Structure formats: structure tokens, C-alpha cells
């Protein structure tokens, strides 16, 4: 193909949930290597970087207090925060991975994308407003509202850093491969570039810069995807039936692409994956942190409404894009690795693998300039996600571990911010190193693991501390750790890791997604160890529930927006 010559990256590129290892077999990208420099893409990417660095400089000048650094001074509006949440959440993985899955399997891609959306209403109904009313900068503020600071903040920091680490590894490896593929940069340079930019955004611009990077990225991604979906529909006279008919004619699976295939075969696995996606969303520290950037509970509520709309709209676009790729790419050999005989597999021989379907489609509907634009958007997408993760990790270190646990609150704001910036640099360096180490590893299970931990540690602890009077520090600590440990152990023993990564013959735990079991362990653990906690401290904590309950429900006494 013209602008995108043969480019092959390693397998497991954008895989995000462990339960889908099978469907990723079709998306596996074979071999290694990179393409020639893609000039339009690089120019557009440089414009994005220049713009975001300018914003970072502007943000750095306005970031004076800890509230500015962690929460953008609470001055983000509900609409802006909705866009930023969408920008924080929609990864290159969902864009390229889901459209690639639709390209390969049709309807199954829709089933998968739905799971990534349905957690949002739960975040709104149960978490968002209460979080805003009780917390200040991190979700640990909420858990430690009436519970003992030291154990609960350590637990929340462990939960946060685990999710951030697993998610970052997946993002860094994906970023390295993608940039190698799209821009022709060597893998290591790509990983260092991503790491350096995320350090700059977070360390200099804090939450203000991170928010605007996410907002710009969300607009670019939604704009680019809308254009592609529009062009696809336009080529069928805006008749979905005509588009589906053409896809059924062209796709080697024909009518099978219009109905559920093999994605959901085992109900236990499917339910477990669904639980991880649904409740994991409500336990992602970088997402929860975003609710402190708005003025009050009402704005927090609006943010989720807008975010759900943007994210839902985006998944509908990826579905159209996937079908568009079937209709516009599959009959054009220039997008495929063609054998000497002229034959090619219309799914697996796509240049760069099925995850490249949306990228090739960009070329098909908008030429090489639009291809460059979409490539730059994919890069921007990664940056916005990793910046959010880095900020969440840095806050857990400086605000939860250092300021609360080590210094017992006796620390100046300046020193806390300095430590947070320093942590961002360290997290960036660690992320670059891990990205380098994991280059040739199968990281397909990492995002699944991040969601499983978020659903089995962060979410149960947060929910129980806010809703159940009986929760005690000991209960939260033991239950949370059990949830976290069981999720990690079950993933390690699962087919995705034990068999596919470590090469053992049979898995010791039959399901790729542990959430159904590890969430149960966490909730039962919190309940049981709170019940049998007869300490005097436990009584005090239970008595303090009333005051917490009133503040969480009404916002009386909540941290307000800070004037600039």
C-alpha cells in the first residue's frame, strides 16, 4: 500500500481484556519491523505536541496550589470534564482494537464494545456525586474519611499503583508498536518519546494540562472517527441495510458476521468479563480522580452524562468503521499481504494485522493526508491516557503515601507538589523501562488485569466504605487485599497467562477473567472482617458513619471550587 507500506508488529498489540484472547488470534500481528517515515503523520503529530506543550506551559503558570495540581483547582465544567473523561477512557486500544474486531468478526465487536460502556451509568448512580462530596484529590480521601488513614491509604495506594502499572505496561507496549508501525520510529525511541511527553505534561502542567490534553484528544478522536463513519455511510447512500448487504457479500464469513459468533461461548466467562468491565470502570483511579476537578456534585453528575454520551457515540462509530473497513478494504489487494499466486486471506492478511483496519480505512476514505491525521490522533490518544494514569499514580505516592501516611499530614503544600512531580518523573522512567522490558512479551492480559484489580479491590472498598455503616478499617484492609491478591493470582493461573505466556500445558484456573470470584471474595472479606472486628477503633469508625453519610448525600461541608 502507498502511504502505509508493509509493517508488521508483534502480537498482543492492542489486546485489552484477557477473556478475549481467542478473538485476538485473528488480530495478531505477525513478525516485527517498521515502515518508512510517514511524513504527513509526523507533521500533524508535531503540531499536536507543540499545541499541548504550549498548553502545558500555560497550565504550569496557573498551577500554584495542591488543589491546582491534583484537581485543576476544581475549575473544570461538567461538559469539559465529560470530554476529558472520554479522552481519559477511550484508548487507542478501543479505537483500533474494536474496529479491528468488527472487521474480523462483525457483530461480536459490538458485543465487546458494549461492555466498555455499561459501567458508566453505575459510576453515575452510585459513585460520582458521593465521591465528589467526600473527597478532595484521590479516591483514598473518600475511603479514609472515617476509616483509619494509615491502613486505608496504603491499601488505596497499592490498588492505585497496581492498576496504573498494569494499564501503563499495556499502553506503553501498545504505543511503542503502534508508533513503530505508523511513524517508522524505532520501538525504543517511541517508548521514550511517549514517556518523556507524559512526564512533561504531568510534572509541569499537573491536572490542568492533563485535562486539556484529554479534551483535545477526545475532540480529535471523535471528529476523525465521525468523518470516517460519515464517509462510509455516504458511500452507501446512508442506508445501513445497503452497507450490511455489501459487507455480507464481501466478508468470507458472509451472513455469520450479522450474528453472535464465538466471543461468548461460556456464560461464566462472559459474566465475569462483564463484571470486570462494569465495576472495574468504577474503580479506575485515574477516572475517579477526574471527579475532583469539577466544582460540585452537580457538575460531577453532568460529567458522567456527557462522558457516557461521547463514549457510547464513539462505540457506535467504531462499529460503522469496522463494517466500512469490510466493504471498502476487503476487495482491494493493495491493503493485503498477497501471495505470489495473487491469493490472500481477507481477514488475517490485512497489512499490519486486523487492528490496522481503521488506519487503512482512513486512507481509503480520506487519502494519505487523512491517514496521517488518524495516525497522529492514535498517538495523541495514547498520550492522553498515559498522562491520566501517571497523574493518578503520582498522586497516590505524594498525597496518599507521603503526605498522609509518612508525614501524617504535617507537610507543606509546596513539598507535597514537588514530591508528586518527582513521582511523575519516576513513574515515567519506570514505565519506559517496563515498556522496553515487555517489548516482546504478550501483554494481552494486562488491561484485563487492571480492570479485574480495579473491580476487586478499589471498587468494593470504596462502595462498602460509603454505603455500609459496618465497614471498619480492618475489614476494608483485609477484604481489599484479598480481592487484589485473588484477582492477580487467578489471572496468573488462567489460560491467558499460565498457558499462553508461561507455556504450561494446562491452566490451574479455568477462566481468563477472575472478577466474578475475586469481587465476591473482596465483598465477603470486607463484610466478614468488619463483623468480627471488635476493636474500640471499629466502634468509633461505625459511629462516624452518620456524619460521613450526611456529607456524602448532601455535600454539606464538601470541598468547594477554588477561585483563581
Amino acid at each position, binding site marked *: 500500500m502507498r502511504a502505509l507500506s508493509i509493517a508488521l508488529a508483534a502480537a498482543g498489540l492492542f489486546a485489552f481484556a484477557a477473556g478475549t484472547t481467542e478473538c485476538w488470534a485473528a488480530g495478531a500481528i505477525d513478525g516485527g519491523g517498521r515502515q518508512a517515515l510517514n511524513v504527513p503523520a509526523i507533521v500533524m503529530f508535531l503540531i499536536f505536541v507543540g499545541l499541548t506543550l504550549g498548553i502545558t506551559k500555560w497550565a504550569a503558570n496557573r498551577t500554584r496550589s495542591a488543589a491546582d495540581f491534583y484537581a485543576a483547582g476544581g475549575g473544570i465544567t461538567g461538559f469539559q470534564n465529560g470530554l476529558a473523561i472520554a479522552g481519559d477512557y477511550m484508548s487507542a486500544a478501543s479505537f483500533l482494537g474494536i474496529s479491528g474486531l468488527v472487521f474480523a468478526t462483525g457483530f461480536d465487536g*459490538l*458485543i465487546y*464494545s458494549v461492555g466498555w460502556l455499561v459501567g458508566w451509568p453505575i459510576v453515575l448512580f452510585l459513585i460520582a456525586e458521593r465521591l465528589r462530596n467526600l473527597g478532595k484529590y484521590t479516591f483514598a480521601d473518600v475511603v479514609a474519611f472515617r476509616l483509619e488513614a494509615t491502613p486505608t491509604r496504603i491499601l488505596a495506594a497499592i490498588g492505585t499503583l497496581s492498576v496504573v502499572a498494569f494499564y501503563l505496561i499495556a499502553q506503553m507496549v501498545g504505543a511503542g508498536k503502534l508508533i513503530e508501525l505508523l511513524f517508522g520510529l524505532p520501538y525504543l525511541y517511541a517508548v521514550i518519546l511517549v514517556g518523556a511527553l507524559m512526564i512533561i505534561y504531568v510534572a509541569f502542567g499537573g491536572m490542568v494540562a492533563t485535562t486539556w490534553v484529554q479534551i483535545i484528544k477526545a475532540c480529535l478522536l471523535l471528529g476523525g472517527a465521525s468523518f470516517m463513519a460519515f464517509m462510509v455511510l455516504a458511500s452507501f447512500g446512508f442506508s445501513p441495510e445497503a452497507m450490511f448487504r455489501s459487507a455480507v457479500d464481501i466478508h468470507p464469513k458472509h451472513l455469520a458476521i*450479522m*450474528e453472535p459468533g464465538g466471543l461468548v461461548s461460556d456464560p461464566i466467562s462472559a459474566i465475569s468479563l462483564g463484571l470486570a468491565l462494569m465495576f472495574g470502570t468504577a474503580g479506575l483511579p485515574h477516572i475517579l480522580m477526574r471527579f475532583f476537578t469539577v466544582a460540585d456534585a452537580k457538575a460531577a453528575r453532568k460529567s458522567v452524562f456527557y462522558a457516557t454520551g461521547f463514549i457510547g457515540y464513539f462505540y457506535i462509530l467504531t462499529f460503522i468503521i469496522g463494517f466500512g473497513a469490510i466493504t471498502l478494504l476487503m476487495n482491494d489487494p493493495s491493503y493485503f499481504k498477497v501471495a505470489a499466486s495473487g491469493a490472500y486471506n481477507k481477514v488475517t492478511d490485512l497489512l499490519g494485522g486486523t487492528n490496522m483496519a481503521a488506519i487503512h480505512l482512513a486512507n481509503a476514505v480520506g487519502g494519505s493526508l487523512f491517514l496521517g491525521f488518524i495516525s497522529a490522533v492514535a498517538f495523541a490518544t495514547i498520550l492522553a491516557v498515559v498522562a491520566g494514569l501517571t497523574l493518578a499514580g503520582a498522586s497516590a505516592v505524594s498525597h496518599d503515601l507521603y503526605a498522609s501516611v509518612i508525614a501524617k499530614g504535617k507537610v507543606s503544600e509546596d513539598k507535597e507538589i514537588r514530591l508528586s512531580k518527582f513521582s511523575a518523573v519516576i513513574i515515567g522512567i519506570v514505565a519506559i523501562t517496563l515498556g522496553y522490558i515487555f517489548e516482546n512479551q504478550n501483554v494481552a492480559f494486562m488491561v484485563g488485569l487492571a480492570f479485574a484489580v480495579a473491580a476487586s479491590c478499589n471498587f468494593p472498598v470504596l462502595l462498602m466504605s460509603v454505603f455500609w455503616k459496618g465497614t471498619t478499617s480492618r475489614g476494608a484492609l483485609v477484604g481489599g487485599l484479598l480481592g487484589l491478591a485473588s484477582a492477580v493470582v487467578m489471572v496468573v493461573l488462567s489460560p491467558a497467562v499460565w498457558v499462553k505466556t508461561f507455556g504450561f500445558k494446562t491452566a490451574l484456573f479455568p477462566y481468563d477473567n477472575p472478577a466474578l470470584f475475586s469481587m465476591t471474595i473482596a465483598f465477603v472479606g470486607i463484610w466478614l472482617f468488619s463483623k468480627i472486628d471488635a476493636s474500640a477503633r471499629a466502634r468509633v469508625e461505625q459511629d462516624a458513619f452518620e456524619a460521613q453519610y450526611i456529607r456524602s448525600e448532601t455535600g*454539606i461541608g464538601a470541598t468547594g471550587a477554588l477561585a483563581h
Partner: protein
Amino acid sequence: MGDNDVLRIRREPLFRELVDKRTRFAWALSAAMLVIYFGFILVIAFAPKVLGTPIGGGVMTVGIPVGLFVIVSAFVLTGIYVYRANSEFDPITHQIKERVK
């Protein structure tokens, strides 16, 4: 907020009303989302052919609008919550704040 304020708000009938209404509403909407999503997943697991039924003689199957319905329902449910929270819960919260001032 002192102990006295806590007691006062706790005894405030409006507070009970707010919390009862909103809690019931929020859990009902959460249950609706769970039923819609896991219903969808269970149909796929146990009766995938239902979703593969063509509509009106074309290639479009029941699964496409049903899948879109799940996506749209997530957005609509959040919209329903926000509407009622803005129009009903916020004024009650405001009244409670006024009363305990």
C-alpha cells in the same frame, strides 16, 4: 460539621425524603442497567440464534438494533437520572442546606 448538626440533619424529614427517594431511584436504575446488559450477554450465551434472526427480509438482524439499544439505554438511563437529580433532588438538598444554616 459538629455532632449537633449531624443530629439536626439526621432528624430533618427532608433529609430522609431525599435519601430514601434518591437511593431507591439510583439502585433501581443500576438494576435496570445490569438487567439490560447481562440479559444481552445471557441471550448471546444461550440463544444466539435469536439475535441472528433477519429483519424484514434484509440482511440486517435483530442483534444490530438490540446491541445499539444497549448502548443507547446506558446514555438514556444517565439522562433520566440527571434530569430527576437536577429537577427534584437538588432543590431538596438546597432546602436542607437552608434549614440547617
